[in-house]
């Protein structure tokens, strides 16, 4: 059984190796290394977003479209506070706090009313919330090019010929640590056990005396903090633009799909692979122009592969 789990990881690693070999064949090793490193950097961002989504989905059954919007709101708050001259770390904490607050508002006030609805309906509702948050953020901060810099942007190391800043290393390390930490939390703590029970069957868990609201609040809280961190990283490494950060939720969902919305390690590997494959396609003269499509194609293929042979005989609940 353990072998089956590792088989998945191996599959992704082999896929990455094949793609690198295919497109990199005959190219200068240093150039190929640059593309791989850049791909890992982008991929870890996709993975980070995907991890946030899967963590919440596993605990509450809600596919949260509003994570990106909460992160965007947090990032804009951090920017605004540093514009007003406050010390930078206060802005970062404010980013996490704002994203947490927004996510908790939804999780405590709105999500319970939808707890008995289908998964799709719950996801669509988070979409509505995302639109509200995005509209308010766009209204409060007019369209101007803005940038956030973190002190770790200035420090860097050279890996595979490419200079990787400390910020990107933090994202990469954070995604690994978060996966490990969540695994520990769910597997070894009491609250984690309660969360797993809740995800399995909400009604039964309530009957057994598990404090539903408390556990769900913790789940939403963790998700909110992750959303804030992800939003800040997107703002620093991609662009500080509310619309862009909000709709990064779509490639994040692609990464989440790779893990079948449950396996965090595969989400991480899947996200990294997406980034690497997307970048390696730059070396193909034919596919170079459409390379941003790689995450979506990969996610769609993963979905179809895992759903093969499924006969939906008791449809209705989902």
């Amino acid at each position, binding site marked *: 059984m353990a072998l089956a789990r590792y088989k998945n990881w191996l599959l992704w690693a082999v896929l990455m190796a094949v793609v690198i070999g295919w497109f990199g064949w005959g190219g200068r090793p240093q150039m190929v290394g640059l593309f791989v490193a850049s791909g890992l950097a982008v991929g870890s961002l996709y993975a980070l977003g995907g991890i946030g989504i899967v963590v919440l989905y596993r605990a509450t059954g809600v*596919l949260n*479209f509003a994570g990106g919007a909460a992160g965007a709101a947090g990032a804009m708050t951090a920017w605004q506070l540093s514009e007003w001259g406050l010390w930078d770390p206060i802005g970062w904490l404010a980013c996490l706090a704002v994203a947490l607050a927004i996510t908790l508002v939804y999780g405590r006030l*709105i999500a319970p*009313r*939808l707890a008995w*609805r*289908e*998964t*799709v*309906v719950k*996801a*669509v*509702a988070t*979409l*509505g*919330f*995302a*639109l*509200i*948050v*995005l*509209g*308010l953020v*766009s*209204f409060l901060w007019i369209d101007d090019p803005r940038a956030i810099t973190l002190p770790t942007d200035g420090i860097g190391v050279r890996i595979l010929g490419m200079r990787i800043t400390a910020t990107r290393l933090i994202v990469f390390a954070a995604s690994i640590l978060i996966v490990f930490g969540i695994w520990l939390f769910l597997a070894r703590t009491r609250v984690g056990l309660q969360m797993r029970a809740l995800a399995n069957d909400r009604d039964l868990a309530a009957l057994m005396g598990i404090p539903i609201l408390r556990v769900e609040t913790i789940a939403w809280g963790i998700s909110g903090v992750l959303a804030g961190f992800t939003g800040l990283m997107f703002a620093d490494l991609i662009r500080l633009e509310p*619309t862009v950060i909000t*709709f990064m939720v*779509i*490639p994040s*969902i*692609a990464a989440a*799909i790779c893990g079948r919305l449950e396996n965090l390690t595969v989400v991480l590997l899947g996200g990294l692979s997406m980034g690497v494959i997307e970048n390696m396609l730059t070396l193909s003269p034919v596919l170079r*122009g*459409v390379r*941003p*499509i790689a*995450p*979506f*194609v990969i*996610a*769609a293929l993963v*979905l*179809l592969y895992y*759903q093969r042979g*499924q*006969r*939906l*005989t*008791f*449809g*209705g609940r*989902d």
Partner: protein
Amino acid sequence: MKRLFHVTPSGWAGFALAAFAIVVLPGLSSSYWLSVFTSAGCFLLAISGVAFLYARLGMVSLTQVGLMGVGGWVALRLNHAFDFPFEVNLALAALSTMVFGWVLALPALRMRGLYLALVTLMAAGGLEILFATFQFPNGGEGFWGVKTGSSDPFRRPFLAQSAEDYLRYVLICAVLGFLFIELHRRLQPGRAWALIRRSEAAAMAAGVNVTLYKTWAFGITGLLGGAAGALLAGSLGLLDDGTFRASESVMIFALAVVGGARSWQGALIAAILYKVLPALLNIWGVYADLSFVIFGAGLLHAVITAPDGLAGQALGGLKALLRGKDRRDA
């Protein structure tokens, strides 16, 4: 047979409204509002496709605007490459979008509802990239048909060259779209869909080919989306990839739910919210961003309290009013 052509009160109201819109509205509208209403009419057709799929079968398609883009692309390419009349381009665009929708959805139709939604979302993201990379045809050479410089002209229907006539044409197409869906509902597919919605297991036990009917329904969604895209191309004469982003597909699904997926009134409300409300806000000088807030709030309200959307609430209120009146009269 009588049941097939029976018109409900809601149907009469719809015909009356359509008659008013087709006959009177174009004359009353300035050039600005003609443009807005034509656009709303095209999206009305697309929204009806998405709404019917969700209401009748519980299937969520988050890629309808992307499919509109496919239809628009085909219509533009045919227009610039050959000399067919507009109706032929429209039909071919709708049919090819239907096939494209099948290719996307067929493998996914066996999935649980959430996974179909996710596959369509991935498709929407992919289509957004494809449109941005390859752009829309504007009279150039080659398969993609794109050239720098201004666009070649787009031939409108013979009967609808002016802006007023084109608005009428679009509205008539929208009405035909609704009638097309209603026809299906009243015939065998409608009964099969109702059974599938209730329980796929029961449908299979009753010998209904579930995959076939689900595919059929998705095909209709694609057909209507493709037709809407071709009509939009005719309205503007050219198309831009900014109109067909993944976020727009998600948005019109959300609005279809807000308006009310079960009825034509709901689709109409959705189209008005999507196109007419921002145009009004623009005239009044209000920030367009606030329309996001309104949409989002409407979506939450609809999902939480009103599964049949605003139209459902309005119709329910009307019925209650009439029932109360009858009781008083009795």
